[in-house]
């Protein structure tokens, strides 16, 4: 397979271009998709290439625009609705939960909603309470939606293509801090099936289940842990619905210890679901209690020291792992948060 080196945003751009060239029913809508910023470059040049009818800015009406995307999907089109901040999805929840998620089952299978929603988790620095949220657990709670959190450029490209080909509503959550990651992606793009966890690093002492930006932080933690004699296996679910339960349990059976790290809150969160999976189906494998890390149970602050304490990081992940193994945190400089972000958005 031929590959290309692209960053996360470029990989998304390549997937969209590929899908739009292949299928005239695919179109892009969302605030700013046609402006000079082009949603972090992911829709750059598309107005000229595919025309204003297939690439259009929308009124700032997330509720109705989501319903309009649902209706367009029912009417035979394949909309990709793009939100530059995932927080804006909360305005769209009625349409997402009451219509998109339910249509197939509620109509007795008469129709389904081939809708793709791309939403960017805005964490970078200082984005505050309403520009940084990670809504994955809320979406996981609703039967009928599919939820993906691509980590690498290859994931982003492959999952986006799979989402566009899927006859069901799919939400892709793209973490802002992943946009600078560069990686090899297939050229031309190919769809990556949902429901397959990826082992980002093999290990034997504990399993760390972490996705998206938390997978990147966990990999750094694992490197640090390895230097100090702890072998961590990093399992990235990649898609949360469907969730690769077997893949997670397989790793747990190997290591006997499970730490779940999520970019969202822990209460009723994605991490709670994965911990419950271990309790219900992996109990015999566990040699220690499951631990979880996520955002602190408060709103995201702007002030830098508070913000750093709010999120899990390579350092806190490593600390949790040492603690699970009954080891003291070594006297060595801990890994820093990877963040090439320079602002403002």
């Amino acid at each position, binding site marked *: 397979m031929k590959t290309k080196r692209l960053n996360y945003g470029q990989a998304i751009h390549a997937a969209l271009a590929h899908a739009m060239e292949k299928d005239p029913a695919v*179109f892009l809508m969302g605030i700013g998709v046609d402006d000079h910023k082009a949603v972090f470059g992911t829709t750059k040049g598309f107005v000229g290439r595919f025309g204003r*009818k*297939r690439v259009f800015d*929308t*009124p700032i*009406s997330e*509720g*109705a*625009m*989501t*319903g*309009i*995307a*649902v*209706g*367009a*999907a*029912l*009417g*035979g*089109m394949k*909309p990709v609705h793009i939100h530059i901040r995932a927080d804006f999805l909360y305005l769209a929840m*009625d*349409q997402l939960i*009451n*219509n998109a998620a339910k*249509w*197939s*089952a*509620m*109509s*007795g*299978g*008469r*129709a*389904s909603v081939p809708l793709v929603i791309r939403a960017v988790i805005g964490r970078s620095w200082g984005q505050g309470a309403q520009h940084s949220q990670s809504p994955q657990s809320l979406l996981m709670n609703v*039967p*009928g939606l*599919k939820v993906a959190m691509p980590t690498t450029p290859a994931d982003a490209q492959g999952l986006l293509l799979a989402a566009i*080909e*899927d*006859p*069901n509503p799919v939400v892709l959550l793209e973490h802002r801090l992943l946009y600078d990651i560069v990686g090899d992606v297939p050229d031309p793009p190919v769809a990556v099936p949902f429901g397959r966890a990826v082992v980002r690093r093999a290990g034997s002492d504990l399993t760390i289940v972490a996705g998206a930006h938390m997978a990147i932080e966990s990999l750094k933690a694992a490197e640090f842990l390895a230097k100090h004699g702890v072998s961590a296996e990093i399992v990235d679910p990649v898609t949360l619905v469907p969730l690769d339960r077997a893949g997670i349990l397989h790793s747990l059976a190997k290591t006997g210890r499970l730490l779940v790290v999520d970019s969202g809150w822990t209460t009723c969160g994605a991490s709670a679901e994965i911990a419950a999976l271990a309790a219900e189906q992996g109990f015999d494998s566990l040699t220690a209690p499951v631990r979880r890390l996520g955002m602190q149970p408060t709103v995201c602050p702007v002030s830098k020291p508070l913000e750093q304490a709010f999120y899990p990081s390579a350092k806190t992940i490593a600390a949790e792992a040492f603690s699970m193994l009954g080891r003291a945190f070594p006297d060595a400089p801990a890994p820093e948060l990877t963040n090439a972000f320079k602002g403002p958005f």
Partner: protein
Amino acid sequence: MKTRTARTLADNDLALYRLMLKIRLAEERIVALYPSDKIQSPVHLSVGQEAVAAGVCLALATDDHLHGTYRGHGVYIAKGGDLGRMFAELYGKDTGCARGRGGSMHLAAPEVGLVGCSAIVAGLIPVATGDALAAQMQGSPRVVCSFFGDGAVDEGVFYESVNFAVLKGLPIVYVCENNGYAIHSRVPDRHKQTDLFRLTEGLGLRGSRHDGNDARVVFKTMSRAVAAARRGKGPVLLEYMTNRWHEHVGPGTDFQEAYRHPKDRTRAAQNDPLRIMEAALKRRGAARLDAVAAEIGREIDAAVAFAESSPFPPVESLLAGLYAESR
């Protein structure tokens, strides 16, 4: 595009009458059956409002789409949905139009253009608007009707959707069936501007109000709106004034309740859409209406028998259909 063959005026009035009578008699049958508890689904009846559904749907071609509400028996029947599958759906049977998953509030008959019905007030207004966007993008001749009650204009998505439809000149007709009450709340208790058809003027949507108890008026005004939308003239809003004879949900009437206007009962009786059409047809010496009623009665008998004799969905199918299979 399937279009209806040209009808004479008398034929057309008879067709409207037939649709209205079918809605009326089907709902009267639901009322009669309800105490048996065989229909375990909340029913929102449209008795008294039949002229709106009949006039609107007869003005649409079969391939035109309509998105309805939980008060959906009328549009389901008038759009041409199969009556047996409707009763089966009310009974929760596997042969229902939504295989027993939807019930009374989520009727769907995509084969005749009824895309679906929603139990969320205004929930399908944006969906209908998106369907019209799809029609425009595809260059399809279909027109979409967004059908909703007066309560729906309280919701924000109504205005957001209208704004987008006007902006893009979408082939959609917004039909507001104003029966005066959102559940038990009167229009003047919810809006300073009670001419609901004027609410969207500032957004650039043309609106007009019409008698919703005379199916001929509904048909004529709707036909004009559909033709304009099909010609690319963009959306309009039609408000039809009518009366709800039953309680918001359930088989009973509640004219005696305090929320009702004391004149509601007489107003309803004096504006019975069936009597209005009957009088018109009789003046013209049209066909024997008794025979029409008998024929519809037999159709309803058959529909109920179909529902009663149909199986429930197998329990093993509980989780099926949540996601559509990849094509």
